[in-house]
């Protein structure tokens, strides 16, 4: 995709990855992704961030088109993760910038990633300002949103905020602006990105939104480093969405996530789901054999309850459920109701192990869990259905609080 003019002097010069389906090896990106970075033409020409290394030629071509023979004086590195900083060595070598601005933690991460000892790094803690001509760069550290080095760069003269990974979505598109794109897909992708990347740092999101509000920044262009960008009224839309996400208010919704060997645990999931649905709860049944853990997490994110199921296997649980629970625990979902179920043949540790996971995640565990020997019969299904009703009652009590 060619460069895109944002203001008279600020250009998108990023790269679109139409084929990527896996984001950093832990989350699916079914719509591909886009790496946004920016070039500011002023007395000091400034490049803000770079792109994923394998797309460097797309970015370099865009940068060269906009530069039209000029050089790059300053680099701003808002985040050191390699999908944004990975082309720094190429850019430094080609353009030999006078200064590289990054946060205090960014400096440490820069040395940790690159042979940067001879680079002209200047650390810019929160409150630092750099004038590049008619524009002024204001730096605001956004630690743990989502790495310690993360930083936001704001230009008051252009009402532009480069917000790095915050507000991003994994979408490959020819459109650059959210207001040009399908709204449902945009919102789903924002949620998917938040649930799988930003969620554990929700308390930091709330503090950062508070801080931005108190600074009273006038932002007309909110420019994340992934996906569609926000302008005009959409800036408020994106900020409101993050407030909503960070508050983690649950819906009347339950996710049943399970793995199964001989379909007994799967049948139990179906009976539990009926108990929930008959009480008016929206239910998603998600087999780990059919769903990647990131898809499950996107559904778990706004659910009030998560019911986890596995048969007992070698005195433990099935490995795909261990994968799911490890992933979920790391993302620290808050305020969930939990319950467990599973079949077994002889030893039957499954629900005890599953409940321990739920307790470790501080879920409100309701029950009793349903554990069934071999293939469930009518009585077992009745217990499953009752578990569904019990969880539904807990959801209603919580969501109507």
């Amino acid at each position, binding site marked *: 995709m060619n460069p895109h003019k944002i203001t008279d002097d600020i250009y998108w010069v990023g790269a679109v990855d139409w084929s990527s389906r896996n984001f950093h090896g832990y989350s699916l990106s079914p719509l591909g992704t886009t790496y946004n970075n920016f070039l500011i033409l002023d007395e000091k020409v400034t490049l803000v961030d770079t792109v994923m290394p394998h797309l460097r030629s797309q970015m370099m071509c865009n940068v060269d088109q906009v530069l039209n023979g000029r050089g790059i004086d300053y680099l701003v590195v808002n985040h050191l993760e390699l999908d944004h900083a990975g082309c720094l060595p190429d850019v430094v070598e080609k353009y030999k910038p006078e200064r590289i601005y990054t946060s205090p*933690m960014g400096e440490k991460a820069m040395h940790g990633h690159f042979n940067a000892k001879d680079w002209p790094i200047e650390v810019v803690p929160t409150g630092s300002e750099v004038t590049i001509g008619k524009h002024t760069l204001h730096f605001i*550290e956004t*630690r*743990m949103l989502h790495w*310690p080095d993360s930083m936001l760069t704001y230009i008051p003269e252009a009402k532009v905020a480069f917000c790095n990974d915050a507000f991003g979505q994994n979408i490959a598109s020819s459109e650059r602006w959210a207001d040009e794109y399908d709204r449902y897909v945009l919102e789903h992708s924002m949620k998917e990105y938040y649930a799988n990347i930003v969620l554990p*740092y929700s*308390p*930091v999101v709330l503090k950062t939104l508070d801080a931005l509000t108190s600074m009273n920044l006038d932002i007309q262009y909110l420019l994340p480093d992934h996906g569609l960008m926000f302008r005009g009224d959409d800036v408020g839309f994106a900020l409101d969405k993050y407030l909503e996400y960070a508050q983690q208010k649950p819906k009347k919704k339950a996710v049943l996530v399970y793995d199964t060997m001989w379909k007994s645990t799967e049948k139990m999931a179906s009976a539990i789901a009926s108990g929930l649905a008959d009480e008016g709860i929206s239910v998603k049944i998600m087999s780990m054999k059919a769903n990647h853990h990131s898809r499950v997490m996107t559904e778990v994110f706004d659910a009030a309850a998560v019911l986890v199921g596995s048969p007992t296997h070698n005195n433990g649980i099935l490995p795909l459920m261990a994968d799911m629970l490890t992933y979920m625990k790391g993302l620290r979902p808050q305020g969930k109701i939990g319950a467990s179920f599973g079949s077994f043949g002889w030893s039957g540790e499954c629900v005890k192990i599953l409940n321990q996971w739920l307790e470790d995640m501080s879920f409100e565990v309701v029950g009793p869990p349903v554990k069934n020997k071999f293939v469930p019969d009518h009585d077992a299904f009745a217990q499953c259905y009752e578990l569904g009703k019990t969880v539904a009652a807990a959801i209603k009590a919580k969501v109507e609080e």
Partner: protein
Amino acid sequence: MKYVCDVCGWVYDPALGDPESGVAPGTAFEDIPDDWSCPICGAPKDSFSPED
């Protein structure tokens, strides 16, 4: 006792202190000034919990 940052997971080890922030090795977590913050993510002191 070691304390862990609830935000980023960094562990405060009293034996090492946090010299960059002026906390000398051997300082118990309780004796760190209240305005100290996590050297990695900037979380305030009350965001730390005892390590299990």
